[in-house]
């Protein structure tokens, strides 16, 4: 057979088009069979923040398993695309791109520190991927594409400061970590202390690598406060509680903290060092409601060596469930339709109780709990129902300004 130029071109064209079309044909075949809805997950499982991220991943997996066991969403199963961001902001940016562009996921849950959230939020805005941030933080994020399910200072500090003042007295001394979380939280502590007729004697900030707190402990003794408010962060700062106890100050001046016990300080510190420290969060593993008990039981059963199951884990679970409710209500995974469904005042009964999404802020109205460390465990003292994200609400109104995409700094 002679190969004429025309026939050669003809055959090549057929062959090429077959090759190009083949994946599409195969893929549509596969789609009909499986076609999962994809849930992106960006959490640190290693590095300094790994202990915080690990239970979040467990909670996300649990939520997805439960949804799948109940038949999935819209008749389609869920599939998790998880990346370990290794406490590295650069990896956050990189994996966020990958989730948005390559994996084309339908929603992303993740981000732990505020820095990591601000690294990935613009990416999801740009590529129009729905984003859930399930961590407690300083408040102020105002972005229609983003839902923040964790607590903000107005929800916890507002309860913590007056309760601690009622127990201890009106003169407080603030010690906080020297970066945006500590700085902003210290402002909130000052506000709520003054609102309740108290007085701040002094506010000290500590770089994260400070390890010797001797002079601070002397300064606190010289100032003679009734109460210490702590927003210290990280392993090095735990030394404060040790040196405080070593100096025999334990029990002489009560301590209330917005950060202590979020990871696993009560179980790793000696009872003498942690007893009677007061904290307020959106969830405690020790809550005895049936929903909370079964949540903790399921995670512990699947992962017996899970770190402390804190607000981080319960908010992640509730975040995924709220999103699922939104998809069910919208009857679609179209981003705008889901957002509108989520904005319709959706409610989910989770481990922490009733959680509802607030339309103007995209934050949650949720329960807050006050607890005290007793014998290396939290003992829940009080429950405050329906705490509102009043701080973010003071600056953010997505009903009026739906095109906002920034984090406001809340001036006090």
């Amino acid at each position, binding site marked *: 057979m002679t190969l004429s130029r025309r026939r050669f071109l003809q055959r090549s064209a057929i062959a090429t088009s077959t090759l190009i079309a083949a994946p599409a044909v195969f893929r549509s075949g596969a789609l009909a069979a499986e076609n999962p809805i994809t849930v992106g997950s960006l959490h640190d499982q*290693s*590095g*300094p923040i*790994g*202990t915080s991220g690990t239970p979040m991943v467990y909670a996300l997996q649990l939520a997805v398993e439960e949804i799948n066991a109940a038949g999935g969403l819209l008749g389609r199963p869920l599939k998790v695309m998880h990346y370990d961001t290794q406490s590295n902001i650069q990896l956050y940016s990189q994996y966020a791109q990958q989730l948005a562009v390559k994996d084309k996921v339908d929603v992303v849950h993740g981000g732990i520190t505020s820095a990591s959230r601000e690294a990935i939020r613009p990416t999801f805005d740009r590529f129009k991927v729905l984003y859930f941030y399930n961590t407690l933080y300083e408040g102020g994020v105002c972005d229609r594409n983003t839902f923040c399910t964790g607590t903000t200072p107005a929800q916890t500090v507002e309860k913590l400061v007056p309760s601690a003042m009622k127990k201890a007295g009106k003169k407080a001394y603030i010690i906080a970590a*020297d970066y945006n979380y500590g700085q902003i939280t210290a402002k909130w502590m000052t506000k709520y202390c003054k609102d309740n007729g108290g007085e701040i004697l002094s506010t*000290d*900030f*500590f*770089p994260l*690598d*400070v*390890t*010797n707190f*001797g*002079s*601070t402990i*002397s*300064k606190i*003794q*010289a100032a003679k406060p009734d109460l210490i408010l702590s927003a210290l962060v*990280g*392993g*090095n*700062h*735990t*030394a404060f509680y*040790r*040196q405080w*106890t*070593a*100096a*025999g*100050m334990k029990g*002489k001046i009560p301590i209330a903290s917005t950060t202590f016990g979020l*990871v*696993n*300080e009560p179980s*790793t*510190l*000696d009872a*003498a*060092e942690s007893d009677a420290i007061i904290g307020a969060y959106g969830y405690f593993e020790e809550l005895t409601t049936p929903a909370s008990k079964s949540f903790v039981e399921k995670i512990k059963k699947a992962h017996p060596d899970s*770190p402390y199951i804190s607000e981080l884990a319960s908010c992640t679970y509730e975040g995924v469930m709220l999103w699922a409710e939104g998809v069910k209500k919208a009857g679609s995974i179209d981003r705008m339709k889901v957002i509108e469904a989520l904005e319709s005042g959706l409610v989910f009964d989770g481990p922490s109780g009733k959680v509802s999404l607030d339309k103007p802020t995209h934050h949650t109205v949720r329960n807050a709990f006050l607890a005290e460390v007793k014998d290396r465990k939290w003992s829940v003292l009080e429950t405050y129902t329906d705490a509102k994200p009043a701080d973010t609400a003071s600056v953010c109104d997505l009903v009026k300004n739906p095109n906002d995409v920034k984090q406001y700094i809340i001036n006090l």
Partner: protein
Amino acid sequence: MAIYVILALDVLNGISSLFLLCLGLAIIFGMMKIINLAHGEFIMLGAYATVISANAGVNIWIAMLIVAPLFVGIVGLVIERCLIRFLYGRLVDSMLATWGLSLLIIGIITTIYGNTQQGVPTPLGGFSIGSYQSSYYTLFLAFMAAVMMAIIYGVMRYTRFGLVARATMQNPAMAATLGVNPARVYMSTFALGAAVTGLAGGLLAPVSGITPVMGGAYVAKAFMTVVGGGAAILSGTLSAASLFGSVNQVGAYFTTPVYGEVIVFTTAIVLIRLLPQGISGRFFKGNL
């Protein structure tokens, strides 16, 4: 009045903990010119050895004073044989290798014990001066710093090992000609430095936040102190530790902890500018 006594104790605490943290580094860097960037991880290993053995039921004093230095000393010995001995005289290579080593140690400890806080209660209690409280542990740290100083001085000045070690550091070729095996001296000096560092980690374990990455908080200050101290191991380290420790504590007391740190680092820069050979390069020449 009482507040000044307390402040003096804070300063003493700052000086003695800094001195303990730096002594091992001064031996390794000052004598052998190996920049051991895994110094912070040796401290961390000492702290972990203490916490883990104490929580396993070993008496806390034995855990701090015997288990920690012994364990880290052995680790140091192994590291010297497997890694450091190929790097004598190669300053930059030794930095790279020990930095990698520090990451490896952090990784191993994280894999075994997880990335969480470890803790051991502080022995000894507090005491009061007037209406102020301080801890006996502060005094104990100062006492241990003094004991360590005496031991190192005694060993280096009065024993045959100290004499041989100093001779080898000064001129390895001449020492070898006189029948000394420099490789062996280097090995034991490195292990000694590691053991002293492990002891510091053990002593600080009850008053520190113990995580696999805790070493990072110490390593910069330790190097600054050793370089600021200059060539003399004891007098140099002691004088630099006294300077930086007291400046830090007094600065933090009268301003804020943030400025306390700034003042220390500024002091270090000025010191190195004025005395490029360190304090002992000018004032304690020829001392130990």
